[in-house]
């Protein structure tokens, strides 16, 4: 689906092409009829009105239970300070490129090159992965954004592997702020935006950072020593230029999102929700 469309010549207004891709992406797993709210309903009709309270309680239990644990999805085991070091996450830019607000996250500078404090990175990364997992668990839409051409393809593949979305092309002006006009009257905006590179190709902050803050969308972002971490909800101070580092981040995000979705499926089966029951009856796989 997506690879075929990306292969189309980008010479024809790349911005419009990428914008058009969204409605296609919105039709995820089960292409059912679109309801009046614009959300994709499953093929099955709504659960019977006879037991609304039970359903409501179950839903609340499913959603509230994970919030009680400090690390429900066990994201801590996915990385360690050593693995971050080996992926060269601690390497920052030269001292002249340093952004003022990144100073608290910098350990020191070795011969003019900033070294990021990996202890802080580890704690930030744990918070960010935990947040991503919870959003994915609640069936939120996650959008990967980056404007670094070196890792464009990798990020698109990562998004495809987790069943989420990516936007690594030219970010058209009102994509988030004027979505109603660009996509249609009923659009569901992403519930979380993950920035693998906060800067665009002219080393300025990506427009989506400010736009996500405007549209009250939380963001997770890898901030290098030349980035501004202010508006990013869950910044992760780390290297965003080395291939091993970016590969590590993509792997981590992919794993957490898949883990969270799997957990959601398990919880639904455990609590035997009516929608899942009907899916079982109709013979679809668990």
């Amino acid at each position, binding site marked *: 689906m997506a690879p075929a469309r990306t292969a189309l010549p980008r010479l024809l207004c790349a911005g419009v092409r990428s914008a058009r891709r969204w409605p296609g992406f919105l039709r995820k797993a089960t292409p059912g009829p679109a309801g009046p709210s614009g959300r994709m309903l499953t093929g099955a009709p709504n659960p019977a009105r006879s037991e609304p309270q039970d359903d409501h309680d179950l839903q609340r239990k499913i959603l509230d239970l994970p919030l009680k644990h400090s690390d429900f999805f066990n994201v801590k085991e996915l990385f360690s300070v050593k693995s971050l070091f080996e992926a060269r996450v601690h390497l920052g830019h030269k001292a002249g490129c340093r952004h003022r607000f990144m100073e608290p996250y910098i*350990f020191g500078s070795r011969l003019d090159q900033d070294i990021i404090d990996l202890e802080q990175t580890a704690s930030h990364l744990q918070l960010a992965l935990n947040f991503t997992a919870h959003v994915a668990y609640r069936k939120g839409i996650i959008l990967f954004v980056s404007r670094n051409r070196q890792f464009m393809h990798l990020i698109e593949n990562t998004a495809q592997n987790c069943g989420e979305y990516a936007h690594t092309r030219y970010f058209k002006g009102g994509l988030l702020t004027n979505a109603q006009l660009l996509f249609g009257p009923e659009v569901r905006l992403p519930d979380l935006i993950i920035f693998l590179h906060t800067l665009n190709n002219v080393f300025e902050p990506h427009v989506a950072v400010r736009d996500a803050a405007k549209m*009250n969308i939380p963001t997770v972002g890898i901030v290098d020593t030349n980035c501004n971490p202010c508006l990013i909800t869950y910044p992760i101070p780390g290297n965003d230029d080395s291939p091993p580092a970016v590969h590590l981040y993509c792997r981590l995000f992919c794993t957490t999102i898949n883990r969270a979705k799997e957990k959601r499926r398990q919880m639904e089966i455990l609590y035997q929700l009516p929608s899942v029951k009907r899916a079982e009856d109709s013979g679809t796989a668990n």
Partner: protein
Amino acid sequence: MAGSRLETVGSVFSRTRNLMRAGVLKEKPLWYDVYKAFPPLREPVFQKPNLRYGKAKATIQDIFYHEDRIRAKFFSAYGSGPKAFDLFNPNFKSTCERFVEKYIELQNLGETNEEKLFVETGKALLAEGIILRRIGEARAVTIRHQAAAEGNQPQKDDAWEQQEAREEPQGACSGL
């Protein structure tokens, strides 16, 4: 659906919370409870990035080790050393690294005079098989010495001399 587009005022969470409290925003967003349960270490409030002026400097410390003094002396005397740096290997030991280790070994044995230690380490490495060629005026001595010993080498030495002369400024720029 109501919303607040003032990204410079508070954080995303504070704006959403206040809108819900005021009753303007009816539906709770998906991420609200998650943020409430696991807030970030710093509230994502907008801050105006002001530049530093005058004598104000950043409070970031330089990272230096004790071995750096020995490394500085080694590089000023011998350049980058005979062996090329293999960055693919995480456990790679360069000539400089071995020099530093030997130096510290000899220092722990009780020596105190720095120049003596330097010369002793050079001799110890020579015994292990690593030939260190000095850069600068001392080179003429080594070349003449080598020419006398090996006879046919002077042409190669001149080419090596020119290469070292070209490599020197490059070595200074890489700074590692």
